[in-house]
Protein backbone atom coordinates (compact mmCIF):
# COMPACT_ATOMS: atom_id res chain seq x y z
CA UNK A 1 0.00 0.00 0.00
CA UNK A 2 2.66 2.47 0.95
CA UNK A 3 4.50 1.41 -2.19
CA UNK A 4 1.53 2.42 -4.29
CA UNK A 5 1.30 5.79 -2.57
CA UNK A 6 4.96 6.43 -3.25
CA UNK A 7 4.31 6.21 -6.96
CA UNK A 8 1.25 8.39 -7.46
CA UNK A 9 0.44 8.40 -11.17
CA UNK A 10 -0.06 12.19 -11.29
CA UNK A 11 1.25 12.52 -14.83
CA UNK A 12 -1.16 9.86 -16.07
CA UNK A 13 -4.36 10.93 -14.33
CA UNK A 14 -5.11 13.41 -17.10
CA UNK A 15 -4.99 10.71 -19.79
CA UNK A 16 -6.90 8.36 -17.45
CA UNK A 17 -9.62 10.97 -17.15
CA UNK A 18 -9.82 11.20 -20.95
CA UNK A 19 -9.84 7.43 -21.34
CA UNK A 20 -6.72 7.64 -23.47
CA UNK A 21 -4.65 4.96 -21.73
CA UNK A 22 -3.90 1.45 -22.85
CA UNK A 23 -5.94 -1.22 -21.08
CA UNK A 24 -3.03 -2.46 -18.98
CA UNK A 25 -2.13 1.03 -17.84
CA UNK A 26 -5.71 1.81 -17.02
CA UNK A 27 -6.03 -1.33 -14.92
CA UNK A 28 -2.87 -0.38 -13.04
CA UNK A 29 -4.26 3.04 -12.20
CA UNK A 30 -7.64 1.59 -11.26
CA UNK A 31 -5.84 -0.53 -8.72
CA UNK A 32 -3.89 2.44 -7.39
CA UNK A 33 -7.00 4.58 -7.05
CA UNK A 34 -8.74 1.90 -5.10
CA UNK A 35 -6.15 2.25 -2.39
CA UNK A 36 -5.13 5.95 -2.62
CA UNK A 37 -7.49 8.65 -1.36
CA UNK A 38 -5.09 11.40 -2.45
CA UNK A 39 -5.18 10.35 -6.08
CA UNK A 40 -8.95 9.92 -5.97
CA UNK A 41 -9.18 13.50 -4.76
CA UNK A 42 -6.77 14.63 -7.47
CA UNK A 43 -8.84 12.90 -10.11
CA UNK A 44 -12.03 14.46 -8.79
CA UNK A 45 -10.43 17.91 -8.99
CA UNK A 46 -9.29 17.32 -12.55
CA UNK A 47 -12.78 16.15 -13.45
CA UNK A 48 -14.34 19.28 -12.01
CA UNK A 49 -11.76 21.45 -13.75
CA UNK A 50 -12.54 19.70 -17.01
CA UNK A 51 -16.28 20.24 -16.62
CA UNK A 52 -15.74 23.89 -15.77
CA UNK A 53 -13.60 24.44 -18.85
CA UNK A 54 -16.25 22.89 -21.05
CA UNK A 55 -18.90 25.10 -19.47
CA UNK A 56 -16.93 28.33 -19.76
CA UNK A 57 -18.99 30.76 -21.77
CA UNK A 58 -17.70 32.10 -25.06
CA UNK A 59 -18.77 35.50 -26.41
CA UNK A 60 -21.32 35.10 -29.20
CA UNK A 61 -20.20 35.41 -32.79
CA UNK A 62 -20.80 39.02 -33.89
CA UNK A 63 -23.80 39.23 -36.22
CA UNK A 64 -21.71 40.80 -38.98
CA UNK A 65 -18.84 38.34 -38.73
CA UNK A 66 -19.96 36.22 -41.65
CA UNK A 67 -20.37 39.31 -43.80
CA UNK A 68 -16.97 40.53 -42.71
CA UNK A 69 -15.40 37.29 -43.86
CA UNK A 70 -17.27 37.54 -47.15
CA UNK A 71 -15.88 41.02 -47.72
CA UNK A 72 -12.36 39.81 -46.95
CA UNK A 73 -12.84 36.97 -49.42
CA UNK A 74 -14.07 39.44 -52.03
CA UNK A 75 -10.97 41.53 -51.47
CA UNK A 76 -8.75 38.47 -51.71
CA UNK A 77 -10.39 37.54 -54.98
CA UNK A 78 -9.84 41.06 -56.37
CA UNK A 79 -6.15 40.91 -55.54
CA UNK A 80 -5.78 37.67 -57.44
CA UNK A 81 -7.97 38.58 -60.37
CA UNK A 82 -5.42 40.51 -62.46
CA UNK A 83 -2.93 37.71 -62.16
CA UNK A 84 -5.28 35.22 -63.67
CA UNK A 85 -7.06 37.27 -66.27
CA UNK A 86 -4.56 39.81 -67.50
CA UNK A 87 -1.06 38.69 -66.73
CA UNK A 88 -0.70 35.97 -69.32
CA UNK A 89 -2.04 37.79 -72.37
CA UNK A 90 -0.25 41.01 -71.43
CA UNK A 91 2.99 39.16 -70.89
CA UNK A 92 2.69 37.56 -74.29
CA UNK A 93 1.90 40.91 -75.90
CA UNK A 94 4.76 42.58 -74.10
CA UNK A 95 7.15 39.82 -75.12
CA UNK A 96 6.18 40.06 -78.77
CA UNK A 97 6.53 43.83 -78.70
CA UNK A 98 9.85 43.66 -76.90
CA UNK A 99 11.29 41.15 -79.34
CA UNK A 100 10.40 43.48 -82.19
CA UNK A 101 11.86 46.39 -80.33
CA UNK A 102 15.00 44.47 -79.54
CA UNK A 103 15.59 44.03 -83.25
CA UNK A 104 15.23 47.78 -83.73
CA UNK A 105 17.50 48.55 -80.80
CA UNK A 106 20.21 46.28 -82.10
CA UNK A 107 19.91 47.75 -85.57
CA UNK A 108 20.00 51.32 -84.29
CA UNK A 109 22.65 50.52 -81.71
CA UNK A 110 25.22 50.11 -84.45
CA UNK A 111 24.24 53.43 -86.04
CA UNK A 112 22.96 55.87 -83.47
CA UNK A 113 24.68 57.15 -80.34
CA UNK A 114 21.52 57.23 -78.19
CA UNK A 115 19.05 54.58 -77.05
CA UNK A 116 15.38 54.92 -77.97
CA UNK A 117 12.84 55.80 -75.26
CA UNK A 118 11.69 52.92 -73.08
CA UNK A 119 9.26 50.83 -75.13
CA UNK A 120 5.61 51.15 -74.29
CA UNK A 121 5.28 47.40 -73.84
CA UNK A 122 8.00 47.44 -71.24
CA UNK A 123 6.42 50.38 -69.46
CA UNK A 124 3.17 48.47 -69.32
CA UNK A 125 4.97 45.47 -68.00
CA UNK A 126 6.67 47.50 -65.31
CA UNK A 127 3.39 49.17 -64.39
CA UNK A 128 1.76 45.82 -64.04
CA UNK A 129 4.46 44.45 -61.83
CA UNK A 130 4.51 47.50 -59.63
CA UNK A 131 0.69 47.70 -59.58
CA UNK A 132 -0.27 50.04 -56.78
CA UNK A 133 3.26 51.18 -56.09
CA UNK A 134 4.15 54.75 -55.34
CA UNK A 135 5.61 55.68 -58.69
CA UNK A 136 6.98 58.92 -57.38
CA UNK A 137 9.26 57.03 -55.04
CA UNK A 138 10.64 54.91 -57.82
CA UNK A 139 12.40 57.20 -60.29
CA UNK A 140 13.74 55.48 -63.36
CA UNK A 141 16.65 56.41 -65.62
CA UNK A 142 14.53 57.15 -68.70
CA UNK A 143 14.46 59.80 -71.44
CA UNK A 144 15.44 62.51 -71.88
CA UNK A 145 18.64 60.82 -72.83
CA UNK A 146 21.24 61.00 -70.10
CA UNK A 147 24.96 61.00 -70.16
CA UNK A 148 25.04 57.44 -68.88
CA UNK A 149 22.66 56.22 -71.54
CA UNK A 150 24.64 57.87 -74.26
CA UNK A 151 27.72 56.32 -72.79
CA UNK A 152 26.05 52.95 -72.69
CA UNK A 153 24.94 53.13 -76.27
CA UNK A 154 28.40 54.05 -77.39
CA UNK A 155 30.05 51.46 -75.19
CA UNK A 156 31.81 48.38 -76.56
CA UNK A 157 29.75 45.26 -77.34
CA UNK A 158 29.96 43.83 -73.83
CA UNK A 159 28.30 46.94 -72.42
CA UNK A 160 25.57 46.86 -75.02
CA UNK A 161 24.85 43.31 -73.92
CA UNK A 162 24.17 44.79 -70.51
CA UNK A 163 21.66 47.25 -71.93
CA UNK A 164 19.98 44.52 -73.91
CA UNK A 165 19.75 42.49 -70.77
CA UNK A 166 18.03 45.32 -68.97
CA UNK A 167 15.49 45.63 -71.72
CA UNK A 168 14.80 41.96 -71.90
CA UNK A 169 15.11 41.10 -68.21
CA UNK A 170 11.67 42.19 -67.00
CA UNK A 171 10.04 40.12 -69.72
CA UNK A 172 11.51 36.79 -68.74
CA UNK A 173 8.86 34.18 -68.25
CA UNK A 174 10.10 32.95 -64.93
CA UNK A 175 12.08 34.21 -62.01
CA UNK A 176 14.99 31.88 -62.63
CA UNK A 177 15.46 33.42 -66.03
CA UNK A 178 15.14 36.80 -64.32
CA UNK A 179 17.98 35.90 -62.01
CA UNK A 180 20.17 34.69 -64.85
CA UNK A 181 19.51 37.85 -66.83
CA UNK A 182 20.23 39.95 -63.76
CA UNK A 183 23.51 38.14 -63.21
CA UNK A 184 24.45 38.81 -66.81
CA UNK A 185 23.75 42.47 -66.31
CA UNK A 186 25.87 42.56 -63.18
CA UNK A 187 28.73 40.74 -64.85
CA UNK A 188 28.60 43.04 -67.86
CA UNK A 189 28.41 46.18 -65.76
CA UNK A 190 31.53 48.13 -64.92
CA UNK A 191 30.79 49.93 -61.65
CA UNK A 192 32.73 53.09 -61.02
CA UNK A 193 34.96 53.25 -57.92
CA UNK A 194 32.93 54.25 -54.86
CA UNK A 195 35.31 57.09 -54.06
CA UNK A 196 34.48 58.72 -57.36
CA UNK A 197 30.75 58.77 -56.68
CA UNK A 198 28.88 61.83 -55.44
CA UNK A 199 27.39 61.76 -51.94
CA UNK A 200 23.80 62.34 -53.06
CA UNK A 201 22.99 59.65 -55.59
CA UNK A 202 19.36 60.72 -56.15
CA UNK A 203 20.41 64.17 -57.25
CA UNK A 204 23.26 63.02 -59.39
CA UNK A 205 22.08 59.69 -60.69
CA UNK A 206 21.56 61.02 -64.18
CA UNK A 207 25.11 62.22 -64.34
CA UNK A 208 26.72 58.89 -63.62
CA UNK A 209 26.44 55.23 -64.39
CA UNK A 210 23.04 54.18 -62.88
CA UNK A 211 24.38 50.98 -61.37
CA UNK A 212 27.06 52.79 -59.45
CA UNK A 213 24.75 55.38 -57.98
CA UNK A 214 22.32 52.76 -56.89
CA UNK A 215 25.04 50.61 -55.45
CA UNK A 216 26.14 53.42 -53.23
CA UNK A 217 22.55 54.15 -52.24
CA UNK A 218 22.01 50.53 -51.39
CA UNK A 219 25.20 50.41 -49.36
CA UNK A 220 24.07 53.34 -47.31
CA UNK A 221 20.63 51.82 -46.91
CA UNK A 222 22.16 48.65 -45.67
CA UNK A 223 24.24 50.50 -43.14
CA UNK A 224 21.29 52.61 -41.99
CA UNK A 225 18.97 49.66 -41.53
CA UNK A 226 21.58 47.39 -40.03
CA UNK A 227 21.46 45.14 -43.04
CA UNK A 228 24.19 43.13 -44.62
CA UNK A 229 26.37 44.57 -47.33
CA UNK A 230 24.08 45.77 -50.07
CA UNK A 231 24.01 44.22 -53.49
CA UNK A 232 22.66 45.86 -56.56
CA UNK A 233 20.62 44.60 -59.43
CA UNK A 234 17.87 46.01 -61.61
CA UNK A 235 14.42 44.81 -60.54
CA UNK A 236 10.75 45.58 -60.76
CA UNK A 237 11.07 48.20 -58.07
CA UNK A 238 12.55 50.26 -60.87
CA UNK A 239 15.47 50.80 -58.54
CA UNK A 240 18.01 48.63 -56.78
CA UNK A 241 17.71 46.37 -53.78
CA UNK A 242 19.67 45.95 -50.61
CA UNK A 243 19.84 42.44 -49.21
CA UNK A 244 18.24 42.25 -45.78
CA UNK A 245 20.78 39.62 -44.84
CA UNK A 246 18.33 37.88 -42.52
CA UNK A 247 16.16 34.89 -43.35
CA UNK A 248 12.55 35.24 -42.28
CA UNK A 249 10.46 32.14 -41.82
CA UNK A 250 6.85 31.33 -42.51
CA UNK A 251 5.15 28.14 -41.37
CA UNK A 252 2.21 27.47 -43.62
CA UNK A 253 -0.39 24.86 -44.33
CA UNK A 254 -0.03 25.14 -48.07
CA UNK A 255 3.27 26.42 -49.51
CA UNK A 256 1.87 26.83 -53.01
CA UNK A 257 -0.93 29.02 -51.75
CA UNK A 258 1.50 30.87 -49.52
CA UNK A 259 3.65 31.78 -52.51
CA UNK A 260 0.61 33.18 -54.32
CA UNK A 261 -0.28 35.08 -51.20
CA UNK A 262 3.25 36.43 -50.92
CA UNK A 263 3.26 37.48 -54.56
CA UNK A 264 0.03 39.39 -54.07
CA UNK A 265 1.32 40.93 -50.87
CA UNK A 266 4.53 42.13 -52.51
CA UNK A 267 2.73 43.47 -55.56
CA UNK A 268 0.28 45.29 -53.35
CA UNK A 269 3.08 47.42 -51.93
CA UNK A 270 4.84 47.99 -55.23
CA UNK A 271 7.29 45.15 -54.95
CA UNK A 272 7.52 41.62 -56.18
CA UNK A 273 8.47 38.14 -55.03
CA UNK A 274 10.49 35.49 -56.76
CA UNK A 275 12.56 32.41 -56.02
CA UNK A 276 16.05 33.34 -54.86
CA UNK A 277 18.92 33.06 -57.31
CA UNK A 278 20.21 30.02 -55.51
CA UNK A 279 16.86 28.33 -56.08
CA UNK A 280 16.85 27.16 -52.49
CA UNK A 281 13.88 24.93 -51.97
CA UNK A 282 11.07 26.47 -50.06
CA UNK A 283 12.44 29.98 -49.89
CA UNK A 284 11.33 33.09 -51.68
CA UNK A 285 12.85 36.52 -52.17
CA UNK A 286 10.64 39.55 -51.79
CA UNK A 287 11.79 42.91 -53.10
CA UNK A 288 9.92 45.82 -51.57
CA UNK A 289 10.41 49.58 -51.96
CA UNK A 290 11.07 51.48 -48.70
CA UNK A 291 7.72 53.26 -49.06
CA UNK A 292 5.90 49.95 -48.96
CA UNK A 293 7.99 48.24 -46.32
CA UNK A 294 5.83 49.13 -43.32
CA UNK A 295 2.66 47.88 -44.97
CA UNK A 296 4.44 44.77 -46.15
CA UNK A 297 5.92 44.07 -42.72
CA UNK A 298 2.56 44.58 -41.03
CA UNK A 299 0.69 42.29 -43.39
CA UNK A 300 3.51 39.76 -43.39
CA UNK A 301 3.49 39.65 -39.60
CA UNK A 302 -0.27 39.24 -39.66
CA UNK A 303 0.25 36.12 -41.73
CA UNK A 304 2.76 34.75 -39.26
CA UNK A 305 6.00 35.57 -41.06
CA UNK A 306 8.70 36.09 -38.47
CA UNK A 307 12.26 37.40 -38.58
CA UNK A 308 11.74 40.26 -41.02
CA UNK A 309 14.46 42.89 -41.38
CA UNK A 310 14.06 46.19 -39.51
CA UNK A 311 12.38 49.14 -41.23
CA UNK A 312 14.69 50.67 -43.85
CA UNK A 313 15.88 54.25 -44.07
CA UNK A 314 13.07 56.20 -45.79
CA UNK A 315 15.48 58.55 -47.53
CA UNK A 316 16.95 55.75 -49.56
CA UNK A 317 15.72 55.00 -53.04
CA UNK A 318 16.83 51.39 -52.95
CA UNK A 319 14.44 48.53 -52.33
CA UNK A 320 14.86 45.89 -49.65
CA UNK A 321 15.27 42.27 -50.61
CA UNK A 322 14.04 39.95 -47.88
CA UNK A 323 14.41 36.21 -48.14
CA UNK A 324 11.58 34.19 -46.62
CA UNK A 325 11.75 30.48 -45.97
CA UNK A 326 8.34 28.92 -46.50
CA UNK A 327 8.08 25.85 -44.31
CA UNK A 328 5.22 23.38 -44.62
CA UNK A 329 3.70 22.61 -41.27
CA UNK A 330 4.70 19.15 -40.12
CA UNK A 331 1.99 16.64 -40.88
CA UNK A 332 -0.02 19.40 -42.54
CA UNK A 333 -3.74 19.24 -42.86
CA UNK A 334 -5.16 16.83 -45.34
Amino acid at each position, binding site marked *: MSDARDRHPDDRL*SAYLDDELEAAERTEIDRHLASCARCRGELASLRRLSRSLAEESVPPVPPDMT*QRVASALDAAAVVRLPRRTFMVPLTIAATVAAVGLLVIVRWQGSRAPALPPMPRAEREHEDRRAQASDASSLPEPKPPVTKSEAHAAAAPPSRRVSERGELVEPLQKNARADAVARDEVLKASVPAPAAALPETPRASAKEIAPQSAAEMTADRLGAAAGLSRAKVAPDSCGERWADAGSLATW*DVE*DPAAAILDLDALARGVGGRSEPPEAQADGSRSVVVPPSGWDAFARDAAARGIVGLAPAPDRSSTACIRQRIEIRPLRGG*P*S
Partner: protein
Amino acid sequence: MTDTKPLGAAAAEDEDDLVRLARGGDRRAFDRLVTTHMKPVWATVWRIVRDRSDTEDVVQETFVTAYRSLRGFRGDAKFSTWLHRIAVTRALNHRERSEEKLRRASDPIEVAAERAAGTGASPLHALESKELMRRLAACLELLPAAWRAVLALREAEDLDYQRIAEILGLELGTVRSRLSRARASLKACVEGGPA
Protein backbone atom coordinates in the same frame (compact mmCIF):
# COMPACT_ATOMS: atom_id res chain seq x y z
CA MET B 1 -23.30 35.39 -47.51
CA THR B 2 -23.91 38.16 -49.91
CA ASP B 3 -26.22 35.76 -51.67
CA THR B 4 -27.30 32.67 -49.86
CA LYS B 5 -29.72 31.61 -52.55
CA PRO B 6 -28.87 28.12 -53.68
CA LEU B 7 -27.39 28.00 -57.14
CA GLY B 8 -27.08 24.78 -59.03
CA ALA B 9 -24.86 22.23 -57.40
CA ALA B 10 -23.94 24.70 -54.67
CA ALA B 11 -27.24 23.75 -53.08
CA ALA B 12 -25.74 20.43 -52.11
CA GLU B 13 -26.13 19.70 -48.42
CA ASP B 14 -23.30 17.27 -48.07
CA GLU B 15 -20.11 18.86 -46.79
CA ASP B 16 -17.89 16.81 -49.07
CA ASP B 17 -19.85 18.15 -52.03
CA LEU B 18 -19.53 21.69 -50.77
CA VAL B 19 -15.79 21.27 -50.34
CA ARG B 20 -15.46 19.78 -53.80
CA LEU B 21 -17.46 22.63 -55.31
CA ALA B 22 -15.53 25.24 -53.38
CA ARG B 23 -12.25 23.76 -54.57
CA GLY B 24 -13.56 24.17 -58.08
CA GLY B 25 -14.07 27.87 -57.47
CA ASP B 26 -17.71 27.89 -56.35
CA ARG B 27 -17.71 30.83 -53.99
CA ARG B 28 -21.23 30.18 -52.75
CA ALA B 29 -20.26 26.69 -51.73
CA PHE B 30 -17.41 28.14 -49.72
CA ASP B 31 -19.75 30.71 -48.16
CA ARG B 32 -21.90 27.82 -46.98
CA LEU B 33 -18.88 26.22 -45.40
CA VAL B 34 -18.08 29.49 -43.65
CA THR B 35 -21.59 29.67 -42.26
CA THR B 36 -21.46 26.07 -41.09
CA HIS B 37 -18.10 26.31 -39.37
CA MET B 38 -18.17 29.87 -38.11
CA LYS B 39 -19.37 29.08 -34.60
CA PRO B 40 -16.91 26.29 -33.73
CA VAL B 41 -14.00 28.17 -35.31
CA TRP B 42 -14.96 31.29 -33.40
CA ALA B 43 -15.13 29.38 -30.11
CA THR B 44 -11.79 27.67 -30.61
CA VAL B 45 -10.03 30.89 -31.58
CA TRP B 46 -11.56 32.80 -28.69
CA ARG B 47 -10.47 30.19 -26.19
CA ILE B 48 -6.90 30.62 -27.41
CA VAL B 49 -6.58 34.38 -27.90
CA ARG B 50 -9.23 35.38 -25.29
CA ASP B 51 -9.85 38.77 -26.77
CA ARG B 52 -12.92 39.62 -28.80
CA SER B 53 -11.27 41.97 -31.26
CA ASP B 54 -8.30 39.66 -31.81
CA THR B 55 -10.69 36.77 -32.28
CA GLU B 56 -12.50 38.64 -35.03
CA ASP B 57 -9.21 39.24 -36.83
CA VAL B 58 -8.01 35.67 -36.48
CA VAL B 59 -11.32 34.17 -37.58
CA GLN B 60 -11.28 36.33 -40.66
CA GLU B 61 -7.67 35.36 -41.40
CA THR B 62 -8.60 31.73 -40.92
CA PHE B 63 -11.32 31.67 -43.54
CA VAL B 64 -9.33 33.75 -46.02
CA THR B 65 -6.37 31.41 -45.62
CA ALA B 66 -8.63 28.40 -46.01
CA TYR B 67 -10.14 29.86 -49.16
CA ARG B 68 -6.73 30.51 -50.65
CA SER B 69 -5.38 27.12 -49.60
CA LEU B 70 -8.38 25.08 -50.60
CA ARG B 71 -6.66 23.71 -53.68
CA GLY B 72 -4.13 22.07 -51.38
CA PHE B 73 -6.82 20.29 -49.40
CA ARG B 74 -6.82 16.72 -50.64
CA GLY B 75 -9.64 15.47 -48.49
CA ASP B 76 -7.55 12.92 -46.59
CA ALA B 77 -8.61 14.54 -43.33
CA LYS B 78 -11.95 16.00 -42.41
CA PHE B 79 -12.52 19.51 -43.64
CA SER B 80 -13.25 20.61 -40.08
CA THR B 81 -9.91 19.18 -38.88
CA TRP B 82 -8.09 21.01 -41.64
CA LEU B 83 -9.95 24.23 -40.91
CA HIS B 84 -9.32 23.95 -37.18
CA ARG B 85 -5.66 23.49 -37.80
CA ILE B 86 -5.54 26.73 -39.76
CA ALA B 87 -7.52 28.46 -37.01
CA VAL B 88 -5.28 27.19 -34.22
CA THR B 89 -2.09 28.03 -36.13
CA ARG B 90 -3.36 31.53 -36.83
CA ALA B 91 -4.46 32.00 -33.25
CA LEU B 92 -1.12 30.85 -31.86
CA ASN B 93 0.81 33.03 -34.29
CA HIS B 94 -1.38 35.96 -33.39
CA ARG B 95 -0.86 35.40 -29.72
CA GLU B 96 2.86 34.97 -30.20
CA ARG B 97 2.97 38.25 -32.03
CA SER B 98 1.43 40.13 -29.16
CA GLU B 99 2.63 39.94 -25.63
CA GLU B 100 2.73 36.22 -25.24
CA LYS B 101 6.51 36.16 -25.17
CA LEU B 102 6.58 38.69 -22.38
CA ARG B 103 3.99 36.82 -20.41
CA ARG B 104 5.78 33.56 -20.77
CA ALA B 105 9.07 35.13 -19.84
CA SER B 106 7.73 36.01 -16.43
CA ASP B 107 6.00 32.65 -15.99
CA PRO B 108 3.04 34.00 -14.00
CA ILE B 109 1.38 30.61 -14.08
CA GLU B 110 4.35 29.19 -12.21
CA VAL B 111 4.11 31.95 -9.63
CA ALA B 112 0.45 31.19 -9.08
CA ALA B 113 1.21 27.50 -8.82
CA GLU B 114 3.86 28.15 -6.19
CA ARG B 115 1.36 30.17 -4.22
CA ALA B 116 -0.99 27.24 -4.38
CA ALA B 117 1.65 25.09 -2.76
CA GLY B 118 1.58 27.45 0.24
CA THR B 119 -0.76 27.21 3.18
CA GLY B 120 -3.37 29.63 1.78
CA ALA B 121 -4.45 27.43 -1.13
CA SER B 122 -8.13 26.58 -1.56
CA PRO B 123 -8.70 23.04 -2.76
CA LEU B 124 -10.47 23.11 -6.09
CA HIS B 125 -13.29 20.89 -4.92
CA ALA B 126 -14.05 23.32 -2.10
CA LEU B 127 -14.53 26.35 -4.35
CA GLU B 128 -17.98 27.67 -5.15
CA SER B 129 -18.89 27.40 -8.80
CA LYS B 130 -18.96 31.16 -9.33
CA GLU B 131 -15.61 31.65 -7.67
CA LEU B 132 -14.17 28.71 -9.55
CA MET B 133 -15.24 30.17 -12.90
CA ARG B 134 -13.83 33.58 -11.98
CA ARG B 135 -10.47 32.10 -11.02
CA LEU B 136 -10.49 29.84 -14.04
CA ALA B 137 -10.93 32.75 -16.44
CA ALA B 138 -8.11 34.68 -14.78
CA CYS B 139 -5.77 31.69 -14.74
CA LEU B 140 -6.45 30.85 -18.38
CA GLU B 141 -5.15 34.31 -19.24
CA LEU B 142 -1.86 33.36 -17.63
CA LEU B 143 -1.54 30.04 -19.35
CA PRO B 144 0.71 29.79 -22.44
CA ALA B 145 -1.42 29.96 -25.58
CA ALA B 146 -0.17 26.56 -26.75
CA TRP B 147 -1.58 25.03 -23.59
CA ARG B 148 -4.85 26.88 -24.00
CA ALA B 149 -5.07 25.49 -27.52
CA VAL B 150 -4.80 21.89 -26.39
CA LEU B 151 -7.29 22.50 -23.57
CA ALA B 152 -9.75 24.15 -25.95
CA LEU B 153 -9.66 21.25 -28.35
CA ARG B 154 -10.02 18.66 -25.61
CA GLU B 155 -12.40 20.26 -23.13
CA ALA B 156 -14.54 22.45 -25.34
CA GLU B 157 -14.45 20.62 -28.63
CA ASP B 158 -14.34 17.21 -26.95
CA LEU B 159 -11.81 15.89 -29.47
CA ASP B 160 -9.79 12.77 -28.81
CA TYR B 161 -5.99 12.86 -28.61
CA GLN B 162 -5.53 11.56 -32.13
CA ARG B 163 -7.57 14.34 -33.66
CA ILE B 164 -5.91 16.96 -31.47
CA ALA B 165 -2.53 15.65 -32.62
CA GLU B 166 -3.63 16.00 -36.24
CA ILE B 167 -4.85 19.53 -35.73
CA LEU B 168 -1.82 20.72 -33.81
CA GLY B 169 0.67 18.72 -35.83
CA LEU B 170 2.01 17.05 -32.68
CA GLU B 171 2.92 13.55 -31.65
CA LEU B 172 0.30 11.71 -29.63
CA GLY B 173 2.61 11.58 -26.61
CA THR B 174 3.16 15.32 -26.78
CA VAL B 175 -0.57 15.94 -26.72
CA ARG B 176 -0.88 13.72 -23.68
CA SER B 177 1.94 15.34 -21.75
CA ARG B 178 0.92 18.87 -22.74
CA LEU B 179 -2.63 18.29 -21.59
CA SER B 180 -1.40 16.85 -18.32
CA ARG B 181 0.90 19.79 -17.67
CA ALA B 182 -1.73 22.33 -18.70
CA ARG B 183 -4.31 20.85 -16.37
CA ALA B 184 -1.86 20.56 -13.48
CA SER B 185 -0.73 24.17 -13.87
CA LEU B 186 -4.27 25.41 -14.25
CA LYS B 187 -5.43 23.50 -11.21
CA ALA B 188 -2.56 24.82 -9.12
CA CYS B 189 -3.24 28.36 -10.28
CA VAL B 190 -6.97 28.13 -9.53
CA GLU B 191 -6.32 26.73 -6.08
CA GLY B 192 -3.73 29.39 -5.32
CA GLY B 193 -5.82 32.20 -6.75
CA PRO B 194 -4.49 34.17 -9.73
CA ALA B 195 -2.32 37.20 -9.06
